């Protein structure tokens, strides 16, 4: 077993520097690497480029890095629900590249899988395709999109072991598996770091080979963005 375990979030983030590019898992606030984000805020590094589907909300998730003016550029598919983000974008302080959600996922996966680029139909004929190579296959038009290049990927899983094997829960899975091994260094934080041999090899979502460092997250707030419920009808 090749041991990927580090004992603290500080150890997990060794090597982070100004002007680096980070991938961060999560959809909305679900499945975001809460502990890594909190430590990035403390680090005060600046000029960060973030590849993340969303930008958090004003006081949680990547919103915390925005409030602290640490982010130079966001590469995302959807950035609503964040006033500070909008303010920084409209004032020109923040550079924003909006790309289709499936393209974002596949540019991560391409980096993980060793493809330099992919062709996707998404965005053809729109401003997303401007300046990009397009090509026709079987009568349909596609846009060439390049694999991402990132320094660190910060992902969050439900369970993991010292070998770096990961299991995700529910829709908190989202972009996390696609970002594993898609950056130079992948840091996984887990809710539950279980003893080696506990996880069933049949149930592993991401094998440890894609992970360089794994640590037990200390606190998980797991905030809900849109709490929607129905009432039980008394019978």
């Amino acid at each position, binding site marked *: 077993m090749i041991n990927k375990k580090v004992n603290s979030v500080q150890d997990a983030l060794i090597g982070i520097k100004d002007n680096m590019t980070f991938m961060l898992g999560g959809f909305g606030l679900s499945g975001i690497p809460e502990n890594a984000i909190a430590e990035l805020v403390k680090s005060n590094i600046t000029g960060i480029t973030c590849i993340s589907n969303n930008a958090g909300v004003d006081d949680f998730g990547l919103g915390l890095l925005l409030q602290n003016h640490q982010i130079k550029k966001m590469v995302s598919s*959807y950035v609503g629900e964040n006033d500070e983000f909008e303010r920084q974008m409209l004032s020109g302080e923040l550079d924003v590249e909006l790309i289709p959600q499936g393209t974002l996922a596949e540019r991560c996966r391409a980096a993980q899988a060793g493809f330099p680029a992919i062709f996707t139909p998404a965005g053809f004929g729109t401003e997303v395709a401007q300046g990009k190579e397009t090509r026709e296959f079987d009568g349909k038009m596609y846009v060439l999109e390049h694999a991402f290049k990132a320094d660190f990927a910060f992902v969050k899983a439900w369970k993991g072991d010292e070998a770096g094997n990961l299991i995700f829960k*529910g*829709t908190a899975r*989202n*972009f996390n598996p696609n970002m594993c091994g898609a950056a130079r260094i992948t840091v996984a934080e887990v809710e539950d770091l279980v003893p080696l041999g506990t996880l069933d090899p049949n149930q592993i979502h991401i094998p440890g080979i894609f992970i360089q460092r794994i640590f037990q997250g200390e606190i998980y707030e797991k905030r809900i963005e*849109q709490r929607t*419920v129905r009432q039980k009808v008394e019978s």
Partner: protein
Amino acid sequence: MLDKNGIAKRIAQEVEDGNYVNLGIGIPTLVANYVRTDIEVEFQSENGVLGMGPFPFDGEEDADIINAGKQTITTLPGSSFFDSAMSFSMIRGQHVDLTILGAMEVAENGDIANWKIPGKMVKGMGGAMDLVASADNIIVAMMHTNKRGESKLLSTCSLPLTGVGCVKKVVTNLAVLDVTKNGFKLIERAPGVSIEDIKNATQGTLIIEGDIPEMNL
């Protein structure tokens, strides 16, 4: 004239037995409430779930189980979770049968705009560009006119596009229209709405052939 629930109710009639369906945020989400109970349908949410169920009961919500609108949801027996790349493999690979989404504008050639108002609103396209670029059957659910009373069914879109030539059908508070190579073909009128009302609210080419029935809701 229909309200948002009425539009959802009419669109639900387009959902067929055995369909995998992706519902967008807003009116499309309401469609799930009106699908016939005697057919089998599975709802896909692009953040990574197939077989979505209703909202959870108070106290049973789970931060790890949400839909693309970030709302807490439940899953039904037979459901599955997956990562974003696999989710869009379902969409891009045309395994999802029907996509229902909202729009700010639809053009008579099937172009759709729904992600950006330059200088005003920039929230992003989310999965909409992937959905409209690949889905075989795309139905738009929207009001016929915007808040200023201007038509949203146009000869050409004025806003940045989400996709080109992709919309097949539009269901509004006033009408059901098919997108054909010659323009918007009027199929049905909403209850109490005249052909004249629809003409007045449609800027793009409107094709009216024969009797136009009222919707049967």
